[in-house]
């Protein structure tokens, strides 16, 4: 379109120049000289040979005016071999008085052998001894730019068409202006069908107000960095969850609608829901475990289950805020802190498979716990997953058992040892008759000793 307009302007200009040349007054002569000498386009007058070329012509072809404007200069030297036939044909037609297009393109050849694409516009002047006035424009760069633009457009079009995301545009009324294959494939409409529809026809009614609000924000110039989720309905009534982001659609500097990119996230949402459900089940199981479960990271609890509240007497909120090490009795605190902090840094050599320790409840009661710590990856970072169980009752039982054994040992074995000690002293100083009786006494003490030993060590009553 622009090239056509330019051609029309040039033609008008040439007609003006031709008029000036035929009138030959002094004012027009000066005007002609100023305009032509300073023109950016190459201007020439040719009859049987070049009669005139302007400085732009010299620059375009690399020849001096004196070299060109000679009767023996073959103008075909300025035409690239592939365009010579075209130029000859035009010359013949013109000399036969036939009409030839006033504007055409050909490949020009410069003095240094370079080929340039030029567009020429010509006007015949004079009725006898016809001369041609022409104006040439080097369109090589323009053509390269147009080609690059066309290639770029093609690439873009191809990318849009092949994209797995839906890419589309629509006007202020919501009428689709363009849709790519991904959209037609997902929704089951043909491109023609969609181009006769509005975006409101595919967005679920519950999401229309969200859509309109977002579009209003875009029109108001608000930045919409985050994509918005919508439910859309396909031709067959299937629901899709999409994530879409829109931006102003500009044409010649004016906003004419919106272009948008949308991604089908139905499967992702389904997976998220499934994961959430699975996490929910897992959490429910964890919450109801008879053991206390916690996740420790960055010096704080990241998770505690209900049992941890029962064990410690603190609420979940309090536990999540407090220093977890303050729950551990001072006798065990530093040891546990040391291997925990080492494990968090990646050195798990000292982390025990199982550890018994005392802990302090909110009411200052000291109780016994058994912990099984393990190193896990939680939210991308190293953490300690702890499984704790109150073993105070077991410890009390063990303590009672220990006390029973110790007391039994003390109250039975000590007197027996003393009895035997004195018995042996008397034995050495006694007569054979007394010694015989003492031996019976020793035997009786041995029997008692054996019974007690079997009770204490085996839990059995026999000699």
């Amino acid at each position: 379109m622009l090239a056509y307009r330019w051609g029309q302007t040039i033609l008008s200009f040439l007609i003006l120049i031709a008029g000036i040349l035929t009138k030959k007054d002094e004012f027009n002569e000066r005007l002609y000289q100023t305009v032509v000498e300073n023109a950016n386009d190459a201007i020439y007058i040719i009859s049987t040979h070049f009669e005139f070329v302007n400085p732009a012509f010299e620059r375009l072809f690399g020849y001096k005016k004196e070299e060109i404007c000679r009767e023996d200069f073959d103008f075909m030297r300025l035409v690239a071999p592939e365009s010579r036939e075209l130029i000859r044909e035009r010359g013949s037609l013109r000399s036969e008085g036939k009409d030839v297009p006033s504007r055409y393109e050909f490949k020009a050849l410069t003095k240094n052998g370079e080929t340039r694409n030029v567009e020429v516009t010509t006007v015949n002047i004079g009725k006898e001894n016809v001369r041609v006035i022409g104006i040439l424009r080097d369109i090589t760069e323009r053509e390269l730019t147009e080609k690059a633009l066309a290639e770029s457009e093609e690439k873009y079009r191809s990318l849009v068409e092949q994209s797995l995301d839906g890419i589309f545009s629509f006007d202020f009324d919501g009428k689709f202006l363009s849709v790519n294959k991904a959209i037609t494939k997902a929704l089951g409409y043909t491109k023609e069908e969609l181009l006769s529809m509005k975006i409101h026809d595919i967005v679920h009614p519950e999401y229309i107000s969200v859509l309109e609000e977002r579009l209003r924000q875009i029109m108001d110039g608000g930045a919409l960095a985050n994509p918005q989720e919508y439910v859309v309905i396909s031709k067959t009534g299937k629901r899709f969850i999409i994530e879409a982001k829109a931006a102003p659609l500009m044409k010649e500097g004016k906003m004419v609608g919106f272009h948008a990119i949308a991604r089908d996230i139905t499967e992702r949402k389904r997976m998220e829901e499934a994961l959430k459900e699975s996490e929910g089940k897992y959490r429910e199981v964890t919450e109801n475990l008879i053991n206390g479960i916690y996740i420790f990271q960055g010096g704080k609890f990241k998770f505690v289950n209900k049992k941890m509240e029962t064990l410690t007497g603190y609420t979940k909120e309090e536990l999540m805020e407090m220093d977890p090490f303050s729950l551990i009795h001072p006798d065990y605190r530093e040891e546990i802190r040391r291997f925990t902090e080492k494990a968090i840094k990646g050195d798990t050599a000292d982390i025990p498979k199982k550890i018994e320790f005392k802990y302090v409840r909110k009411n200052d009661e000291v109780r016994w716990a058994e912990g099984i710590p393990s190193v896990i990856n939680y939210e991308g970072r190293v953490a300690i997953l702890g499984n704790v169980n109150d073993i105070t009752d077991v410890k009390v039982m063990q303590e009672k058992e220990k006390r029973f054994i110790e007391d039994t040992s003390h109250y039975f074995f000590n007197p027996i040892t003393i009895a035997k000690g004195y018995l042996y002293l008397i034995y050495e100083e006694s007569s054979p008759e007394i010694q015989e009786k003492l031996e019976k006494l020793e035997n009786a003490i041995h029997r008692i000793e054996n019974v007690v030993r079997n009770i204490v060590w085996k839990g059995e009553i026999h000699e």
Partner: protein
Amino acid sequence: MSKRILIIEDEADMQELIKIYIAKANLDVKIYSAYTGEEGVKAYKELMEKGEKPDIVIMDLKLPGMDGVEATKKIMKMDKNATIYGFTAFFDTNWADELRKAGAKDVIPRTVGFDGFADRLKKILSQ
């Protein structure tokens, strides 16, 4: 030169029998007696300060107040080179293990009798 033995034992009869059997075994020792854990730790400290540190401590486990494990810990804290032997009826119990962990060289079971104890002492003193 006589060796010094500190016997920490709450039963007077046990103290007496140990002394009798040591005398019977002709061991050249000077015996000090303590009847509680606290008394034993105090006696060890005083002897140390006088430059008469006991060569051997015979430690009972079950003592009124501070038990044998605690008393052993305190003496070891005072003198990491202290030589302490348990002589107890609680042989083969966790408590006896705790005594070893606290620093006792070994635990002599009372089932060996006083002759057995005196023999064992003789061997220790000759080391």
